[in-house]
């Protein structure tokens, strides 16, 4: 984007959503660890407590379970709370309230109980923080019926999907990533989206390869696509945005055209979101695949702290480029001798 437009960083875009929500909706409030801290959640909520008061921007004891349950209780009473977990890792202490309570409350009580609860789980990893300060696990939560899962990759989505989540009458897990906070985009005016209408979106149109990703992984795909373009490869990039419930149409239509699928995900592979996308294609249009589908995910290990290992652990743009090149240069296996493909792609 050019120098002249005013652009907004992802972290600030999140703050703008809070600002809008707290100004516009008296029933909106936010609660969680670090909300009275100058640095706890990066630049995404700075001074909201000073602006809207410590009764609508509530910092808490180190009690993830009770804090999340309390937000759920307030939501049942007509409020629209956003509960903040500065790290997904900490949020896991509230698993019961998220998965066994919030996600099931409406269905369990007949379908008419509104649960306008937004849970914001921040992916905060890298920096040699290690295994307990690094987990993403959006694949986990996307697995749970009743829980909507949203993962913005751009400042615009960071702002508008947060607003849409809070205005939704279902529990929503909103997952943002500290690695995206400095990403900039020129934003239009705020739009109140109906989250039920939102789904995967084509970020870039291409013909040779379909790339599917969400959150920070989408950024990797865009960067990789730029590099690949230099060598003449054109990539169709689909940003998932809403991980549960998933609407696969855009993806299927894309693979239909490109015949090649690369899914990039900043979560683990086994039973993860990347595999889910591959499965959606294989159970609907396997014939469209002219090469084996390909996943790029975290290494199958807990996050290490040591710098060199950390660089191996997290996928980067080059990993995506390499995988894409292998896919593009790989043999067309549609009529394939799949023995050799097993050797070739089985690694």
């Amino acid at each position, binding site marked *: 984007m050019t120098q002249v437009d005013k652009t907004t960083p992802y972290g600030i875009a999140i703050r703008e959503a809070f600002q809008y929500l707290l100004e516009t909706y008296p029933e909106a*409030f936010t609660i969680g660890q670090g909300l009275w801290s100058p640095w706890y959640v990066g630049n995404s909520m700075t001074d909201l407590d000073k602006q809207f008061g410590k*009764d609508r921007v*509530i910092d*808490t*004891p180190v*009690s993830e*379970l*009770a*804090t*999340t*349950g*309390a*937000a*759920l*209780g*307030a*939501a*049942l*009473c*007509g*409020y629209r*709370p956003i509960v903040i977990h500065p790290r997904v890792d900490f949020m896991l202490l509230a698993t*019961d*309230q998220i998965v*066994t*309570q919030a996600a099931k*409350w*409406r*269905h*369990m*009580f*007949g*379908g*008419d*109980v*509104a649960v306008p609860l937004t849970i914001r789980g921040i992916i905060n990893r890298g920096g040699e923080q290690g295994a307990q300060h690094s987990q993403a696990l959006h694949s986990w939560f996307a697995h749970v*019926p*009743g829980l*909507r899962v949203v993962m913005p990759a751009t400042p615009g989505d960071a702002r508008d999907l947060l607003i849409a989540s809070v205005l*939704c*009458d*279902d529990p929503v897990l909103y997952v943002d990533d500290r690695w995206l906070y400095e990403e900039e985009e020129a934003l239009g005016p705020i739009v109140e989206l109906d989250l*039920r*209408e939102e*789904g995967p979106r084509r970020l870039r149109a291409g013909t040779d390869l379909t790339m599917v990703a969400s959150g920070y992984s989408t950024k990797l795909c865009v960067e990789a696509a730029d590099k690949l373009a230099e060598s003449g490869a054109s990539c169709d990039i689909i940003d998932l945005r*809403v991980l549960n*419930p*998933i*609407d*696969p*149409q855009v993806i299927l239509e894309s693979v239909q055209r490109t015949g090649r699928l690369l899914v990039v995900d900043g979560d683990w592979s086994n039973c993860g979101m990347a595999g889910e996308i591959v499965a959606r294609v294989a159970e609907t249009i396997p014939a469209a695949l002219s090469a084996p589908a390909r996943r790029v995910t975290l290494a199958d290990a807990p996050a290490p702290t040591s710098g060199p290992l950390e660089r191996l652990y997290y996928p980067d743009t080059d990993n995506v480029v390499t995988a894409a090149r292998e896919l593009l240069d790989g043999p067309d296996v549609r009529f394939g001798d799949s023995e050799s493909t097993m050797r070739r792609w089985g690694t």
Partner: protein
Amino acid sequence: DALRTMHQIRAAEETIGDMVTAGRIRCPCHLTIGQEAVPVGVMRHLNAGDRVFGAHRSHGHYLALGGSLDRLMAEIQGKDTGASRGMGGSMHLIDMERGLFGTVPIVGATIPITVGAGLAAQMDGGGAVAVSFFGDGATEEGGFHESLNLASVRQLPVFFVCENNFFSSHLHIGLRQPHDSVSRFAEAHRVPWQRVDGNDVVAVADAADRAVTAMRAGQGPQFLEVVTYRWRGHVGPRDDLDVGVRRSDDLHTWKLRDPIGRLAAALVASGVIGPEDSERMRADAQAEAQKAWDRADRDPFPADEALLDRVYGGRRDAAQVREA
């Protein structure tokens, strides 16, 4: 009136117990027979706008709030006319109009949720309170302690009511905790507490009155430990004499403290009711419960669509429609 409600609860549960025995109920039912004084004593001091949460043993909480007997029986049978439209059964009851905001079987789960209702009440500023009913077993869940601390530090109008019946499933509290009174936790978290005989409906009501009055006056949370005993087993109509060392002797002793019998005797003694009135109430309640059961029996089950239509709000998503 309190007497009538206690009779209603017991009659309903005896009918339910019989139906379980008769194999006409599949969903697990946890009976509160013997503990009827607790919900009846507490609810009498609640108003519209107050919000109540319970756990797995909540038929009494539902009925004491004035919940419909028909809808309770229908829910237990999984009928579309049930309190939770057949989606929850005995362990998941709701009646938001009457202030029952939900009961669920994950032990301790509704305690932090009640704290949130207290937070909402505080923000509303209308003097309403949030009430959490839970058992002694629930005090072993960490979330219970987190909840007491959160309500205490933010001075929320949350009424923690622990029905201490000394058992968590098959285990006596003596095998689970170093001491058999749970008020010590309220003390630690600086929540004002009272401990009363849970089989004396008047004692329970008076304690609830004091607590609720203080909360409405903005004095923060309150804790009430009601000491009581369940006559039936952990789940279903059996009496679980196969568990716990002292269970059978204790059961005998506690039946002598029948909350219904005690209130009836007191009312007769003070001439408020005649000697036959209580028995008549019991018989009426019994007949009512049976009628309600039979009516529910003829109600329809939820339509197949309910399985997917009730997951999210509004009509189905594009995504969902495609799935279905």
